[in-house]
């Protein structure tokens, strides 16, 4: 085999540095306002509804529902901000 050395200009690029560590947590679930964010893929709502039923039964949470309408499109930031301000925590579905 040839011993020639070739320098390759790397065609890939790094993504931005990710955050690490733990996300924010609730101190307790009892009575919390839990947002359920549905990406509108088929049956996402079925999953979230079951989660909501269990959390309501076990912790008396208040449920706030948000439907993203188009799965492959980011939700409008104004709507998301409003949704976030109404919630203490969020459960979302990323599925297919």
């Amino acid at each position, binding site marked *: 085999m040839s011993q020639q050395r070739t*320098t390759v200009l790397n065609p890939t690029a790094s993504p931005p540095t990710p955050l690490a560590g733990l996300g924010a947590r609730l101190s307790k679930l009892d009575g919390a306002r839990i947002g359920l964010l549905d990406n509108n893929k088929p049956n996402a709502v079925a*999953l979230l509804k079951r989660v909501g039923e269990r959390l309501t039964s076990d912790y008396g949470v208040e449920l706030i529902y948000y439907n993203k309408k188009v799965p492959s499109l980011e939700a409008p930031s104004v709507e998301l901000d409003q949704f976030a301000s109404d919630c203490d925590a969020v459960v979302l579905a990323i599925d297919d």
Partner: protein
Amino acid sequence: MAAQNLPTVGLVTTEFSDFARQLLEQQQASVTPLVEVGHPVGGVAPEVAADLITESVYEAIVASLLPAKNNESDSAGAAERTEQTRAAEVQAEESEPVDFEVTGDEVAVTAEMHRRGMTDGLPVVVPTRERVDEMCAGATRYPLESLGSIAPLGGAATILKIASNAVMAGCQPEHMPVIEAATEAIQEDEFNLVGMQTTTHPCALLSIVHGPVAETLSMNSGAGCMGHGNQANATIGRAMRLVMQNIGGAHPGKTDKATQGTPAKYSWCFAENEAESPWPSLRESLGFHASDSCVTVAAAEGPHNINDHGSTDAEGVLNTIAQTMTTLGNNHIYVAGDHFVVFGPEHAKTVADSGFSREDVQAYLYENARIDASRFTPGKYDEATSWGGYADRLEAWGNRIPLVREPESFRILVAGGPGKHSTWIPTFAVGTTQTRAIQLDAELCVL
């Protein structure tokens, strides 16, 4: 949600968990805990899907919303976050893509690039310093200038990186301005690049070149223009795919979640046949000047042939086109969006000779390319996502569901050579086709 420091848990199926983690990292939201459920969630009865929330899944959700058991103190949590952030930064620094050396001939170097996942699977031209410098010389910007971050993973599209991928694709330096314009165009918010790159839908990047530059680059706008055999068509399309893969980070099965994909993802670029168009060029119809050169980018399904050897007038040809478009399996049923109808010159002449302008063609298709609601199963109604469901609209539509919101969404142009064939190109539709002027005359200062 995580960016707002709101406690958030993501439910994700086993087949999408790696993908979700990478996207969350790119969006600076990797602190979001993910809980896996079985795959698939879709395509089963709702009660079957709901049962995927098993006791252990539910417990994981609850645990993810509450403080970790071994880490009750906020200050301890903050310290851990700081430490992990530092570790992540070091890791990111160490994994910064750097140029690398390979010992051996061109075949050995290409093999190493295959191994590193940098190719499209086909042999590439090795991007050596000399070749990339030569490619950069064809650009209209300096090598370290970035055209932005390419979704989904957000790598910076510097001219240098773009040129490296263009070399791999087999481009010539004079192709660079087209690639620069297309790279900018796909980053328009309305294009929805992150959706296009990560969807299960088989959309490829289609680049259509318009105006004088197509002739300058000897591009094919005539017979077989969507096929093989022309260097500029083949390599510009391929360069765009490599940019989207290597800078954007869209890898099949990982971040590019296309269920099956399409051969059009290797390369798809052609030029508009303006010389044989009976109508003004597409760029002029969009408001660009006759002297402008432009590139149109679209997240497109593969081309669908329209064969009509029998019709002798506009209504005949357009009826065949409308009937070809009215199928159930495309995204337009759910979200409208843009279509391309690429007329072969002979079909275009037949239609225009009947007195039909571009606007007449669009109006005809708007009225006639509609799908009778009786062809749908009820489940399809629920998938009409951007319409907000069909049920309330069927009466107004006379039970005939449109494929677009307005006639202009049918993008009409001419390409190809002799023969009685045209092409319908459906799109991803969750996003809007973009057309951008190509900057050709930049004079860079030599320092």
